[in-house]
């Protein structure tokens, strides 16, 4: 396909996104008003309409919509490549993910059979009323959860990643010259330290950062005042790329909520409110087994965490509707996983009665609720919270628990972590390897949760600022290396794996931004 054809396809794709939305209607109306100007010559009509529109508010909205689409859009596939090639180009990784999908399905099925509960059923009238009454305090309405267990934990998933071998590479064979020193043996391309320095150059030590230079000990006139002023200007502009650029140096806490919304292109209008209400009614109508898994997960993680236990009910109000949201299914088009399938009871094998389970296709694992928890500090309206979370999940978080060769996938992040640690701290890496404490086994739980629940909540948000700003999860691996470097002296003194784990058990006191700066830019 020539580049012109590709552009044509792109324009059509984008148009299909905008078609029928209130934005299109508004743009159309505006264009009509402009074209009614009697002084306008017909030869200049098109040009004038485009120019005038792009200066108006709706023009910016259109730009934001296009930008949002471009950020999420996968590369244009080759016409010969099938849909599965778009999901994951490497055959053996595709197979590994499909085996993993099957394993999850099996484990869910056996849970159903053991406990004698169906995956989904309609609630009785009485139960429906109960749910409506308790919507604000769903935590108190939790069923008996003692028999439930999370479908899988990060550890199980790590084992699968460790077992990944390319059948066409010599690296998988033991004692091969090309096998890697870490536990991940997939030869994917990852960025080198120099490339990372260029990528994250706005974070370099000579540049002021929110998260470092807004410390109360530093007089605000040096940095903080100007930063807040600039933040206001950026917000008034309502332009996504601008907000994203601003986030590269972190968001001042007061304006983070708006900045993130602008960067992610989340603008909750009446239709979105209505859609959330609809999802809520679906929660009321149907009782899903996944709800119990979410309950169990929240009780095990967020409720147990002194930073997040107050938000327990908020998290339910996000995750229950999330599991019913079929728009989430869209992300499977460019992710290696496939949503589990099932049939309505009594209609096994009849294609018209095939459904996805859960409706959004995402089975929560141990720690899933922690993707939501830090957001509760920014947004007090559960509806806004919901849409921001959904956008974050569909852009970034799904990559953290799927096997894929994408440069942002958890496999690449693990590999980046291991190779960075080897090149930055060779002595430390060798020491840990010798005492059987493979560093990734310690760091994996941080990576899969994007550090949520391990760091102080404010620090998590400062970290996620950078994820949004650079549109990349790579910063997670950089931070993990930085933490190892920071605790190097203690780690070099321990002689067992459990002691090494002990040294890194509590990282709540760490400040992420200076650590990342130190690890990336100090020589």
């Amino acid at each position: 396909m020539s580049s012109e054809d590709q552009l044509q396809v792109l324009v059509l794709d984008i148009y299909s996104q905008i078609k029928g939305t209130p934005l299109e209607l508004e743009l159309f109306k505006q264009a009509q008003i402009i074209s009614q100007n009697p002084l306008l010559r017909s030869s200049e009509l098109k040009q004038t309409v485009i120019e005038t529109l792009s200066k108006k508010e709706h023009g910016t909205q259109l730009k934001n919509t296009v930008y949002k689409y471009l950020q999420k859009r996968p590369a244009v596939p080759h016409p010969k490549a099938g849909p599965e090639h778009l999901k994951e180009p490497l055959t053996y990784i595709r197979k590994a993910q499909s085996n993993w999908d099957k394993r999850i399905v099996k484990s869910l099925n056996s849970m159903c059979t053991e406990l004698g509960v169906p995956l989904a059923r309609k609630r009785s009238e009485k139960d429906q009323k109960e749910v409506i009454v308790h919507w604000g305090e769903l935590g108190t309405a939790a069923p008996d959860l003692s028999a439930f267990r999370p479908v899988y934990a990060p550890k199980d998933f790590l084992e699968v990643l460790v077992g990944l071998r390319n059948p066409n590479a010599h690296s998988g064979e033991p004692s091969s010259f090309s096998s890697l020193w870490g536990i991940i043996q997939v030869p994917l391309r990852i960025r080198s330290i120099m490339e990372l320095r260029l990528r994250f150059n706005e974070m370099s030590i000579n540049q002021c950062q929110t998260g470092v230079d807004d410390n109360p000990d530093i007089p605000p006139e040096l940095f903080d005042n100007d930063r807040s002023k600039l933040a206001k200007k950026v917000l008034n502009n309502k332009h996504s790329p601008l907000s994203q650029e601003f986030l590269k140096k972190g968001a001042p806490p007061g304006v983070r909520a708006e900045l993130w919304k602008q960067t992610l292109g989340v603008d909750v209008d009446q239709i979105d409110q209505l859609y959330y209400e609809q999802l809520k009614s679906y929660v009321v109508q149907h009782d899903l087994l996944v709800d119990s898994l979410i309950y169990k997960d929240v009780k095990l993680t967020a409720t147990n965490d002194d930073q997040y236990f107050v938000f327990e009910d908020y998290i339910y109000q996000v995750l229950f509707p999330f599991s019913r949201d079929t728009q989430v299914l869209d992300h499977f088009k460019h992710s290696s996983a496939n949503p589990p399938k099932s049939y309505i009871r009594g209609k096994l094998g009849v294609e018209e009665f095939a459904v996805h389970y859960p409706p959004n296709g995402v089975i929560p694992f141990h720690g899933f609720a922690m993707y939501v928890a830090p957001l509760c500090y920014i947004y007090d309206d559960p509806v806004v919270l919901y849409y921001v979370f959904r956008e974050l999940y569909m852009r970034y978080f799904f990559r953290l628990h799927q096997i894929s060769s994408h440069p942002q996938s958890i496999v690449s992040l693990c590999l980046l972590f291991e190779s960075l640690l080897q090149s930055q701290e060779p002595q430390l890496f060798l020491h840990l390897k010798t005492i059987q404490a493979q560093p990734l086994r310690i760091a994996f739980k941080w990576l899969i949760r994007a550090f949520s629940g391990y760091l102080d909540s404010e620090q998590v948000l400062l970290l996620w600022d950078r994820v949004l700003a650079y549109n990349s999860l790579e910063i997670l691996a950089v931070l993990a290396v930085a933490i190892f470097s920071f605790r190097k002296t203690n780690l070099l003194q321990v002689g067992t794996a459990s002691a090494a784990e002990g040294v890194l058990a509590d990282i709540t006191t760490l400040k992420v931004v200076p650590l990342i700066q130190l690890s990336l830019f100090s020589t």
Partner: protein
Amino acid sequence: MNADPKNGTVKTPVYIKVGDPKKEFFSGCCIFDVAFPNTVSVEINEFSFKNYYGHTLTVMARRKEEPGIEPKWKTCLKRMKLMPNPHFETGAQDYFTVTRKQLLFDLTNVTGLRFILRQPSPVWKEFKLEELTFVKTTSETAKSAPLPAWLLRPPRAHGDYPEEKEIKGLPPMDDLSSHLQQMWAMVQQATANQTQVSLGRFDVDNSYDINLLSYT
């Protein structure tokens, strides 16, 4: 001229070895020829393939020459990069299409093609090209089928063809068909204006009772 994707016959790839032929030593170079049986020569517009761990591709072509001149292999594609980095598998199984623009000369009167695939990295056990297809135009020109006679017939005036009796209670056929066309256009417009936003229903016939997940 008819453009149709046809497969040439791909001969068995030869991996170049260095030194003792009995010893396994990959030079990182693999050669295979493609012949086009049952045709004297072909014209190739483009070819596509799926790469499997090859790093660069060079293609040579042999063209039909004047009688008396020995046909020679000439390079028509020089070291096209298939993988961004030979040691890393990112992009190792991608699809490619090589079009006229990328070739050094037009592939006309071609009697055979020779593919030279290189993989300098020792990390991989095997490298090859898969699903190789050519879009070619053979020298024979196919006649375009003439339009059917009934399409060429001039639009008839009302009252012609007395053998086709008018059906009672119906307006004239031509009026009817023009109305139908209008309606069809309206339907097309209506479907084109529909949004792609789904309603988000996940239940079938108001039921979402599920017992177990399916394994397929």
